[in-house]
């Protein structure tokens, strides 16, 4: 995003936003003055609160509507739009970020729950010039088609490897009391919270297998 602003080119997002404003303004101009609607009833005031946390190594202090989810905080307030809103109900995993070393669905977390937390988004894992090994592997193994689930897949996959290193078992683990080895079955079970409608699963698994060193 920053590259596009610097060169003076309009991004797709800016074009769509500008078009939407133009159409809305036109519609309002046409309607106003023809029909006077009823008086607007009392509006519940927005409740805001302050929150401070670190995202990708940078400290942020903001005042937000208490209802703001971590996902909306990242996308709308911090303009880190790598993390995606898929279902907004914790069912697809597109919103996966890493908080204090643990992956969570950011759509089911309030921003206010994260005072002093350390959050890593896809933007913090790597950049176009300095790709995270998982990002390189996804490119090499063609681990995406449309790319919408991909930031969540990558954050989740990175976290899965850490969970396995930490000895956290899964439903696929045969013996609860012994070490967990990276297998295709283990990886697929642990990634079951990240859906991909394009069906890139097998390539995602191969990408992760390479990073895991198997």
């Amino acid at each position, binding site marked *: 995003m920053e590259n596009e602003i610097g060169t003076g080119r309009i991004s797709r997002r800016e074009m769509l936003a500008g078009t939407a404003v133009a159409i809305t303004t036109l519609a309002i101009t046409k309607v106003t003055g023809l029909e006077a609607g009823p008086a607007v009833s009392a509006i*519940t*005031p*927005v*409740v805001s*609160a302050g929150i401070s946390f670190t995202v990708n190594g940078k400290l942020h202090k903001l005042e937000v*509507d*208490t*209802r703001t*989810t971590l996902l909306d905080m990242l996308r709308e307030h911090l303009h880190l739009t790598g993390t995606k809103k898929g279902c*907004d*109900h*914790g069912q697809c*995993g597109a919103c*996966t970020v890493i908080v204090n070393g*643990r*992956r*969570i*669905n950011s759509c*089911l*977390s*309030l921003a*206010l*729950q994260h*005072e002093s937390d350390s959050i890593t988004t896809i933007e913090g894992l790597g950049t176009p010039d300095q790709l995270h090994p998982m990002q390189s592997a996804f490119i090499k193994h063609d681990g995406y088609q449309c790319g919408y689930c991909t930031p969540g897949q990558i954050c*989740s996959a990175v*976290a*899965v490897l850490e*969970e396995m290193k*930490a*000895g*956290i*078992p*899964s*439903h696929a*683990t045969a013996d*609860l*009391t012994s070490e967990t080895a990276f297998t295709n079955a283990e990886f*697929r*079970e*642990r*990634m*079951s*919270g*990240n859906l991909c409608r394009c069906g890139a699963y097998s390539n995602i698994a191969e990408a992760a297998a390479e990073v895991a060193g198997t």
Partner: protein
Amino acid sequence: MKSFTYERVSTPAQAAAAIAAKPGAKFLAGGTNLIDLMKLQIETPGHLIDIGGIGLDKIERLPNGGVRIGALVTNTDLAADLHIRKEYGILSRALLAGASGQLRNKATTAGNLLQRTRCPYFYDTNQQCNKRVPGSGCAAIAGFSKQLAVIGSSDACIATHPSDMAVAMMVLDAIVETISPAGKSRLIPIAQLYRLPGKAPHLETTLEKNELITSVMLPAPVGGRHIYHKVRDRASYAFALVSVAAIVFKDGTGRIAVGGIAPKPWRVPGAESLLPSGAKIFTAKLMAGARPTKENEFKISLVERTVGLVLKQAKS
């Protein structure tokens, strides 16, 4: 989401005081169920008390050989705990069979117990639901009821309890510890935690107003083979149609609780003496009084076959 005020508390005592101070307030722990429901305006607390920072996140050994699991221990941490894996394997297995890695990392022990049904008619605010709106009716009974209850239900509600962890807790004779705003502590055996819907499906637990769960205690380990078998439409990341939590001893006796079929984990201790007689005889007693719909009557024979499979696995 409806607007709400928000506060953070740092101790269980502060939490108990805070909820008494504000009518319509709710505790916020992991939030993986509450925030989901708030987005749909099924839950509309005017005030949230964030208890994420009050501690209660440890698993301690007790002098009686049991354990005390803090209410805020995450599902991941509980399933991964080495002592739990070794001595209460059924609990690890049940936890790992549920939800996704992301959800388990945030969901808490007490939150898991208190999570609300996923009945599609409860979730759709356009539908009649006696849980959401007492007296409005139950659209599920004549609707798509494949996922719903076959036993313990009523003419007012056929919702199931969705938790896997709770089924294991039931078979382990867990005891829920609570604190009231007045500072009083109480112990509730898990078999007494959940209410059946009867005529008042909106009343789901025996918790009193503003009571806070502080921990769940497990008795000393009982040994035996621990098997959690979950039957569902997908291989992962789906709720149970039927799940069986079993602890089976070498002499063929044991304990069984069944999930996915009732408003609470279904365990009939009186039927367990029949376990050595096999799945058919045991299940007949366990499921006595079942009132399935046409769409979910398959669950009754599915329970029998799953129990049979589990008993067979326990012998090998």
